[in-house]
């Protein structure tokens, strides 16, 4: 199991579009992926689950992956959040 804590910097937080990018990336990995905010734990491969976390600017989010390619998954998703979804949103 791998974990990494990231801070959300985007003013817009994680609304529908970033959430869909996050989920799309998460789906590429075979491992189980969870996003944890406070006491809430969301399934990183489910849009509704990620939106339900209500991730706002300044929130701390723990990305947890368990299984095959867990390390790659955590690195990929944390980089995505830290870069404010920039690379994918522009495509």
């Amino acid at each position, binding site marked *: 199991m791998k974990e990494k804590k990231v801070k959300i910097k985007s003013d817009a937080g994680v609304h529908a579009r970033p959430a869909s990018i996050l989920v799309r990336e998460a789906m590429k990995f075979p491992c189980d992926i969870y996003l944890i905010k406070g006491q809430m734990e969301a399934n990183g*491969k489910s*849009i*509704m*689950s990620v*939106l*339900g976390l209500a991730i706002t600017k300044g929130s701390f989010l723990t990305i947890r992956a368990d299984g095959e390619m867990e390390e790659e998954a955590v690195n990929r998703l944390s980089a995505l959040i830290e870069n404010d979804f920039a690379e994918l949103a522009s495509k």
Partner: protein
Amino acid sequence: MKKYLRIHDILENTQKIDLQLTLVAGSEGLDKAITAIEINRPGLTLAGFFDYFAYDRIQIFGLGETAYIKTLSRERREEIYHKFFSYDIVSCVYTHNEYPDEIFIDFAKKYKVPTFVTRYPTTRFISLLTHIVEAAFAESVTIHGTLVDVFGIGILLIGKSGVGKSETALELIERGHRLIADDLVEVKKIDESLLMGNGSELIRHHMEIRGIGILNVRDIFGIRSVRNRKRIELVAELQEWDANTHYDRLGIEEQLYTILDLEVPYIIVPVRPGRNIPIIIETAALNQRLKKIGIFSAQELDKKIQEWIVRENEDYEREKGEN
């Protein structure tokens, strides 16, 4: 993790209970954390007995307390309040629309103790407040699943991503049942005996169906298709059909699923093309209702068969004897 509740959280409680509170002093203290579930009636304290003073609980001033205070001289009140506020008081509430006297308000302002007046009688107020505080302090867990109310039975559908939980829920809604939450279910343990499930407030009654996208179930199917919370009485796990797995064929023994140390009846529903999952879930709900009133189909049938076997054996023995 140590749980706490802020005064703010009580005013804007998730149950949407209006405590009819008017803030009369100490607005700076609204961020204070409450760590005790209980409340305190400070009658003895006001009479000057400060031993065992539960200062860390919300202090409720009822008719008795306010009537007693009125009998005291100004000097005596100042003396008592001085000692009272030397403790780290969380918050004070006056019931029956009785307002605290000016001296009390001055002290509350000075020590930043949020002080409220409510029009509710004491007992009613305490019961509402306890309800809010207990829910906030209740143990909770988030579960990846879909919670539906089928014929009055709260069924938590669980299973791997893509197995068809949301699609099953959608068809159940179409058939007149109700959605509580899709994907992210917050489960709370109430009174150490039952599990209450609800969804995240932000995405309430929305679901994602692959191929369509995000749907607002309440807008599409109407208000009768949703509810905000429901007691979980059955857990149904949807599993990809696997020829090597042994599935329960009898249902004589009840399987249980543990959430927050409480056990809930549990069934595994194998999924494969051609199996109508929503109808199976509906039937499971009806069967669960029968079980609740003490009728166990599988056990009853087994009993009937066993009785029949005993009768047949007796007949056989009798016929053998006669011959």
